[in-house]
């Protein structure tokens, strides 16, 4: 079958990326625009769509912490969860500033790895 490696021509990889990458993602964005255009702000269906989108993003966040890629995977699982929780707690209790949360989480993660060796 037609794979990325199948055709030698210079333009083939670009066609491959356009179809399997661009079209495969933007078609959902276009459907999202058409669906979103029919939603009234603050209607019940809008609340539902926003909840689904929020739960989707939350699931992505949990996966980034639990199943990370690259060098983050070297930090122990409990340390990653604990550091994320500490960062979120610092964000909530120290004035809702994003950078405070990020600094606290990174400090826990790096400090924990140094202590644990």
């Amino acid at each position, binding site marked *: *079958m*037609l*794979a*990325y490696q199948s055709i030698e021509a210079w333009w083939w*990889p*670009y066609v*491959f*990326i356009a179809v*399997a*990458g661009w079209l*495969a*993602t*933007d*078609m*959902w*964005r276009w*459907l*999202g*625009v058409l669906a*979103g*255009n029919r*939603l009234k702000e603050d209607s019940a269906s809008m*609340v*539902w*769509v*926003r*909840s*689904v*989108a*929020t*739960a*989707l*993003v*939350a*699931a*992505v*966040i*949990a*996966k*980034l912490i639990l199943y990370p*890629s*690259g*060098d*983050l*995977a070297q*930090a122990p699982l409990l340390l*990653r969860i604990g*550091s994320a929780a500490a*960062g*979120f707690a610092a*964000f*909530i209790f120290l004035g809702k500033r*994003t950078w405070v*949360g*990020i600094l606290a*989480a*990174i400090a826990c*993660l*790096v400090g924990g*790895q140094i202590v644990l060796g």
Partner: protein
Amino acid sequence: MPAIILMVAFVGFSSFIVDAGIPLGEAVFMTGMVWALPAKVLLVGAITAGMSLPAAFLTVALSSIRLMPMVAALIPELRGARTPTWHLLLLSHFIAITAWVFAMERIRDVPREQRVAFFAGFGITLTLANIVLVATIYSTVDALPALAAGALLFMTPVYFLTSVWSSSRDRSSKLAFVIGLGFGPLFHQIAPEFDILYAGLVGGSAAFLVDRVMAIREAA
């Protein structure tokens, strides 16, 4: 701030794409055309695995269904009274997780007539900055110490945690946020192919129902 965090994530993507043997021109093209980072990682995986075009299309398409509810949730807040639909169709290309989180958090503070321009400015700048980033570091990307690289990668989920929480104004979204955090890993065990989608649909719907029941109880 979100722009810096995303650019850090793209440094990681650049080293991934160099390792996969994708030439510079295609790496830049992919960054601009696909834009959503998880979709690009899957696309590169499909390319290196020698997948056929229909199979690669299906893999990327199935993983990107989540973009539809994300875009649908943002559009009613983004559009003005007379915003033409084709403007929104063009702008929707720049919606991926970072731009979405940022827009959901900030867009309410922008007057309605200026929201499309506000998002266009942020979204297009973010995409262009990362295209330039991939192009410039492609040949120089080199191994950071593991401890520092891990810390940089950790910034993305923590940033999302805090800003998605701030952008969740109604109770249903806050419930969905908490349930989604639990359901992501749960569905990863049950159905790893579609975990995000299931966690979103089931978790979001559960949050919506719980919120409705609570609202009825409060009214009674």
